């Protein structure tokens, strides 16, 4: 029995090591990316003085299009964001204005949270913009994780390098650290509450912390998520912002 256990553990170790970093990222993308998805979430921003929670509904098609409508609180209700390719528009019901966000404003935080418009805009597959290497393996709370180090291979990325901890069985990231070219840690993300949705593992809770920002980070709870839905095409038009 003891020998069998050793053989199983040894074979598992061999199988873990046998995968290349690109293969691991491919399997992560299969979980995290989809042709499209519709999700409802609540976002809690822990500021220095107070915490705020807002809910929203988002429609996303690959990494090209997304549409988000804020549902609560009253101050944010009706605010909508539309991303088409590399362009981003925001609609404000209070002023009935649609503003295109560009330039340095893309680096600003969304709704005071710990992620920026630039983070939201850059939804490309990691494999397409980073060169990945396996830095090691770690065991955390009884589960095995690959530790991947990613270095940007294109210029137009917000973070020069990343370090990602990926569940070795579910192929879902549980922690990510994002670095500037200087090596300074810019953001830290933790993902938890993994649930199987339509045959794929997906984190239902995410915590983002901008390391250069005061406050205790931003939590996102996904309250509903559906993959590969029939999303009406008019959603991804500027006309939909005013509806």
């Amino acid at each position, binding site marked *: 029995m003891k020998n069998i256990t050793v053989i199983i553990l040894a074979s598992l170790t061999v199988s873990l090591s046998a995968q290349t970093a690109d293969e691991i990222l491919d399997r992560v993308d299969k979980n995290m990316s989809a042709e499209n998805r519709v999700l409802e979430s609540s976002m809690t921003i822990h500021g220095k*003085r107070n915490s705020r929670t807002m809910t929203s509904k988002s429609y996303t098609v690959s990494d090209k299009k997304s549409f988000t409508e804020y549902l609560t609180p009253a101050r944010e209700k009706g605010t909508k964001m539309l991303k088409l390719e590399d362009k981003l528009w925001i609609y404000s019901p209070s002023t009935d204005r649609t503003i295109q966000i560009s330039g340095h*404003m893309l680096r600003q935080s969304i*709704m005071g949270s710990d992620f920026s418009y630039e983070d939201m805009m850059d939804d490309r597959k990691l494999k397409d913009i980073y060169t990945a290497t396996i830095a090691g393996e770690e065991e955390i709370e009884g589960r095995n994780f690959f530790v991947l180090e990613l270095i940007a291979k294109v210029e137009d990325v917000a973070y020069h390098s990343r370090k990602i901890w990926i569940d070795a069985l579910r192929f879902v990231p549980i922690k990510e650290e994002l670095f500037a070219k200087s090596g300074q840690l810019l953001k830290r993300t933790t993902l938890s509450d993994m649930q199987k949705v339509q045959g794929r593992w997906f984190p239902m809770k995410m915590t983002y912390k901008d390391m250069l920002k005061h406050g205790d980070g931003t939590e996102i709870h996904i309250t509903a998520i559906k993959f590969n839905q029939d999303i009406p095409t008019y959603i991804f038009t500027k006309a939909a912002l005013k509806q």
Partner: protein
Amino acid sequence: MIKFLLKGILRDKSRSLLPIIVVSLGVFLTVLLSGWIGGVFSDMIDVNANFITGHVKILTRAYAENKNQLPNDLALLDVEELITNLNSDYPDMEWVKRINFGGLLDVPDENGETRAQGPAAGKAIDLLSPDSNEADRMNIVKSIVKGSIPAKQGEAIISDDFAEKFGVNIGEKVTIFGSTMNGSMMFKTFIVSGTISFGTALLDRGAIIIDISDAQLALDMYDGASEILGYFNEGGYVDVKADSVKASFNTKYSSVDDEFSPQMFKLRDQEGLDQYMTLADSMSGIMVFIFILAMSVVLWNTGLLGGLRRYSEFGIRLALGERKSHIYKTTIYEAIIIGFIGSIVGTALGLGAAYYLQENGIDFSSIMENVTMMFPPVYRAVVSPDLFYIGFFPGLIAMTLGNALAGYAIYKRKTAQLFKELEV
């Protein structure tokens, strides 16, 4: 004897004209440059005080740590109560609240979509209260290029550069997009009441100026402000007074354990102004020192030349029995009279020129279009009381010192050789 010496000086122009011209020129330059440098430093300090630092400034401790990021989420709250307390504690000062904010300045087309936009550097001050001095303090009325300052809520002044670049006219709408104090999206549309040009890139680039009540509404800063600035009612910045106010305020209101407690900074603590003001304080002293040194050397030489020219005269006077000490004394008296006349003339001319520059100034705005530091576009001299003596005494001392050094040669003359020297 004074009358006798004066007659000699006036009748023998070769003895007096050159030294008087040299002393006058030196004193003139000292007075003018002291007035000019004093004015330039004073202008820069005033501009910084009026726009950024106040004579003292109050921020929350947390805001002060990150002030370059304009972190309005860390701004002061309950400012009306604080200002009431400040008015009571420091009645000889004026207290004003301001909000600084950044974002995008967006110009809509006829469909309400973006026609043009650029980064905005917003400043909200009290423009609408009838007793507010803020518009004058920031020289807004004189800096208006088109239109007028806001007369009611919902109006804004924008940078004339921005208006020209994007074809924004008076009466058109612009929208500010940014973040509220709580981090929510801030959209606020204003009607452009005027365009402004301060002549300094730092102030003009993307500038939008609105009334503080509009900013409080748009940024969810009810009874909040980025900063409270304090100004002494009488005179300009006085470091000793500011130090005293700062110490008493921080003792009473500030706490290291509460990052949102207010903390006061004096002008000299901010924006690297301490180094600047130390330089300003020492500049006049440096100038006077250089002047006395340079003038003494020049006048020493002038005295030597005069001494050589008057070699025979001194010889005859010695031969006639006049004592060396008496000749030396009369030379010094002459120098004092010449120094006095030269200093009077130089001071009068210097004061006149400094006054002209005080009234008219020199406009450097054309060469400061891309300067991003806080410099005033027009520099003026200032006629301060010290200008009346700052050149006068050095002129007198330099002339006397120069002649004292040159006249010392009298003591080297030997009476026994006088007649031989004089070829009598």
